[in-house]
């Protein structure tokens, strides 16, 4: 791979995550609206929202410190960095050797860490409540993520994502391995918890007492809010990309030619649409569970992940 190709792929990765994540959110919202018998917002509503936020002034609490202003930028940059490591349409990622899936997960944790701090920073009780809940869920989701990653790395014998996809893609038999399927189930639950979707968290709630992620960002406005929202969308996009490509690596380009790139992009779009459809469907038929029921859900996913590993050793 020459340097121009590497550079171009990296730039395209960034452009995809920046450009496509609002569309994904829009897709989920529209599908949900349809399922609820509504028309739903316009296709480009998230872009309009972002443009508007960026044009407004930011109101910052007198109590807040630099952490509050710093967090949105950090989160945004973290998501961009992760985007360089997550395969969308090609497994030929130029920076793959810089860090594997563990690095990705810890960068997600870094952004959560700072978001939780900024929730506490303003001194608002809502922010503190959101931070407390977010860290509770992050703390419980973390072991499942690691174990699910462990299962994948057992099957593919690597923690570098490109390698995982190349190996799984070259032998589809591995995909129907029980370990792989159980790890998939665990990863689905963790994805829902980490990205704040129903039934763990309701992204559209207006009631502060039921909030998790929203409660932490109640204080943000203007450009800060734009960055926080955009980062949250990118996080959803990245998690869904990981979920679909790690467990169903069909169509991900493994060579450097234009045709496979185009095919990869189309298949990637189809996969994400299916995932968005699943989320929209689930959010329509499920209600949010009590916060103290969430640990049961996550414990369940932990058990599934553990089972995945055990099944690998036993079978």
């Amino acid at each position, binding site marked *: 791979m020459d340097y121009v190709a590497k550079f171009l792929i990296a730039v395209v990765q960034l452009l995809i995550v920046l450009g496509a994540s609002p569309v994904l959110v829009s897709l989920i*919202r529209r599908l949900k*609206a*349809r*399922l*609820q*018998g*509504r*028309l*739903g*917002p*316009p296709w*480009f*509503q998230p872009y*309009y*929202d972002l*443009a*508007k936020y960026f*044009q*407004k*002034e*930011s*109101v910052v609490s007198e109590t807040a410190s630099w952490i509050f202003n710093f967090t949105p930028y950090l989160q945004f940059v973290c998501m961009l960095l992760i985007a360089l490591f997550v395969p969308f349409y090609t497994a030929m990622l130029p920076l793959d050797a810089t860090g594997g899936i563990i690095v990705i997960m810890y960068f997600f944790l870094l952004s959560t860490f700072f978001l939780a701090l900024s929730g506490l920073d303003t001194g608002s009780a809502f922010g503190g409540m959101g931070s407390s809940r977010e860290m509770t869920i992050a703390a419980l989701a973390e072991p499942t993520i690691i174990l699910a990653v462990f299962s994948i790395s057992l099957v593919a014998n690597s923690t570098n994502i490109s390698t995982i996809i190349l190996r799984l893609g070259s032998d589809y038999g591995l995909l129907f391995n029980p370990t792989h399927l159980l790890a998939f189930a665990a990863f689905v639950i963790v994805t829902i918890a980490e990205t704040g979707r129903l039934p763990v968290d309701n992204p559209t*709630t*207006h*009631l*502060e007492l039921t*909030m998790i992620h*929203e409660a932490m960002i*109640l*204080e*943000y*406005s*203007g450009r800060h*809010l734009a960055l926080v929202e955009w980062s949250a969308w990118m996080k959803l996009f990245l998690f869904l990309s990981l979920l679909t490509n790690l467990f169903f690596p069909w169509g991900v380009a493994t060579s450097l030619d234009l045709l496979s790139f185009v095919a990869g992009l189309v298949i990637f779009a189809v996969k994400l649409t299916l995932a968005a459809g699943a989320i929209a469907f689930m959010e*329509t*038929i499920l209600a949010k569970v009590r916060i103290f029921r969430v640990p049961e859900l996550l414990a369940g996913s932990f058990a599934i992940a553990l089972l995945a590993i055990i099944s690998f050793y036993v079978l």
Partner: protein
Amino acid sequence: MWDMIRKIRQVGILTEPLPPFPAEYTQQDPQVELVGGELQQRTRILLGRSLHIRQVDAGSDNAAELEIIALGNPYYDMERFGLHIVASPRHADCLMVTGPVTRNMALPLLRTYEATPDPKIVVAVGDAARDGGIFRGSYAIIGGVDQVVPVDLYIPGDPPTPLELLTGMLIALDRYRGKSSRRE
């Protein structure tokens, strides 16, 4: 769960074949679409087609709230015009204030106004929010919303219908344009 899926399927059959502006809606209530369509035009120019609303109850009897809630139902579905109700004034561009301002709610209303980032508009919803309405003269109220914060628009009615609310938003955006051009 299966009941719900069945229901979704039934409703889905009703809505899915509709074009972006559903024929049934326009047949039943042509004004909604007209007004909404115009509103979308305005917001597109002024606020980038996105208007986030924070609703403030300054002492209302909840009649107006019920009508505002109706804006979000599948029938009116204000989201398709880029209107969205948010949980914090920090996220809002527009304050929808209802009810006469009671003495205890005057300061919270002012705080909410201060908490909202510029540029912003204030809409007083209902007769009570304009001048106290049926509560006018009571010792417990200060009066209309304009006694506390500058109001860009009054939407009369006790309570106003959702349709009137949507009509009102259009005029509010006209006011808003004048406001922002002055600032520039």
